[in-house]
């Protein structure tokens, strides 16, 4: 296999639809409408009696609400979202969690199920033990309990035994818009691996696990599966394909004709992404 090469220029375009793209694309400062009956939402602002766009993206209209969705927005967060995050700081009675949003998110000691799985009053002892539960660098999965009004700071909770610290595995960061909204975020895939698609764009790939039980020791096979899953998710994300469980599985199957490490090649990545995308379009029709 050739390692040294010229830079790969993406030539093929996956998307072919969207002939009428132009009329929906706006750039900052463009007037969206002069009709002030519309209510302005994200990505718009009132300026000189017009509703103007403040970000570059597509105009979105639901009833009387107009908004502009940009491409590279940071994760905003909504109540009920499942997020994967990394503990950045242990503070008094709370942890700070990096979940890819603008401000670090908060996880209160009171909103965590402690070992024993019962909701009980937290004692001083628990406060001293906080580092034992989660320490700096740990990966956790949690749910958004509240979104700050002014600054958009997320408050997380773990009041369910599916949430908590994540065991050995790999974290991949993708843009949060690429995660398809769905009720399920924990996917126990038949290929003997679990994928958690956090709404914030943090994707965790690892073995099957259940709370309070040690995970099975890894085999060569299971490591290869995890590596393959990681690589196909990266390939899909690199080409902007929206992620959900079936497309990941489709891509996984398509990728079987390549060795895992070949999935790092730009051409192979593009091929896998393209084929999976077309496949999923087919299924939807």
């Amino acid at each position, binding site marked *: 296999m050739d*390692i040294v090469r010229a*830079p790969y220029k993406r030539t093929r375009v996956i998307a072919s639809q969207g002939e009428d793209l132009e009329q929906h694309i706006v750039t900052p400062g463009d007037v969206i409408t002069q009709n002030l009956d519309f209510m302005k939402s994200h990505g718009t602002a009132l300026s000189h009696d017009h509703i103007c766009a403040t970000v570059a993206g597509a105009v979105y209209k639901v009833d009387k609400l107009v908004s502009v969705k940009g491409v590279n927005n940071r994760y905003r967060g909504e109540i009920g979202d499942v997020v994967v995050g990394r503990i950045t700081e242990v503070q008094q009675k709370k942890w700070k969690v990096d979940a890819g949003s603008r401000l670090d998110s908060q996880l209160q000691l009171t909103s965590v199920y402690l070992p024993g799985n019962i909701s009980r009053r937290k004692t001083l002892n628990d406060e001293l033990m906080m580092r034992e539960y989660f320490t700096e660098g740990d990966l956790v999965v949690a749910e958004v309990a509240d979104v700050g009004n002014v600054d958009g700071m997320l408050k997380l909770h773990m009041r369910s035994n599916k949430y908590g610290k994540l065991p050995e595995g790999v974290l991949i960061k993708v843009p949060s818009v690429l995660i398809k909204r769905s009720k399920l975020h924990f996917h126990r895939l038949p290929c003997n691996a679990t994928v958690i698609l956090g709404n914030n764009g943090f994707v965790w790939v690892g073995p099957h696990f259940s709370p309070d039980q040690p995970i099975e020791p890894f085999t060569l096979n299971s490591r290869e599966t995890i590596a393959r899953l990681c690589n196909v998710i990266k390939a899909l994300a690199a080409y902007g394909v929206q992620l959900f469980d079936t497309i990941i599985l489709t891509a996984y199957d398509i990728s079987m004709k390549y060795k895992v490490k070949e999935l790092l090649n730009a051409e192979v990545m593009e091929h896998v992404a393209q084929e999976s995308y077309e496949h999923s379009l087919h299924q939807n029709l």
Partner: protein
Amino acid sequence: MNLIRLSLAERKYIVESIEEDIRTDGRSCEDYRQIEIETRNLPNTNGSSRCKIGKTEVLVGVKAEVVDSDLHNPSIGKINISVDCSATASPHLAGRGSETMEQEVLSVLNLLYSSIDALNLTDLCIVKGESCWLLNIDVLFIQCGGNLFDAASFALKAALHSTTMPDVSVAGEGIEMELEISDDPYKVWKLNTSMCPICITLYQEGESFAVDLTEEESECSTGHIHVGVLPSGEVSAMEKSGAGNLEPIALLEMIDAAIRIGTDIHKQLHSHLLAESTTATL
């Protein structure tokens, strides 16, 4: 460069994966990621290149100028390497944050090119004892995604290979000597890069070692050795850095691997650069 923090579980998984010879992205310990190289991308330089390995991206520019010869070494030219890490690699690197890392890369590159044979410096002499060429080599990291040393050394070799030096004609003698640098784009000569080494860095991870680490993997490594490999498969330089200690036997094994990998990359790099320079002249 402690920018990312990993949990104990992730560390354990990464180190065990390397020990099992199947890394988190499916490569084995001796596999490189693809090395994307293009040359002549900076128009205001004599030679330049861009090298991308995974997320790591490095830009090298070579600018030649005429300077006075060194008194002690009257018959050779000079090279001067500087390494700079752009703050675009990470906002933590703005200001002085990147200095340690820049120093480390610079010392490795200087080590590689400290040997007189690496680049035939006598070619750079214009008038013995009077004037010679000075190659100012700027190495600029645009993004950091692990394995900075090797990427810099590949880019440096590619940039030197693409370098074109203008012809100089000498008129007069003594104090009245005048140098005329031709600006004819066809009256140029190229540097001989056949003996330029590349750096292969081997990282120690737990009980085994690996090459071309990603950012996450380098977080977990304890120490590393840089091996300067010549196209012929000879070792021209070596440096051990970082924490950790090495068994002599393990060290021999690592050097062996470095030579194996290094000669292969040399071969590919050479044919790639050759192909690129022929398409450029066409």
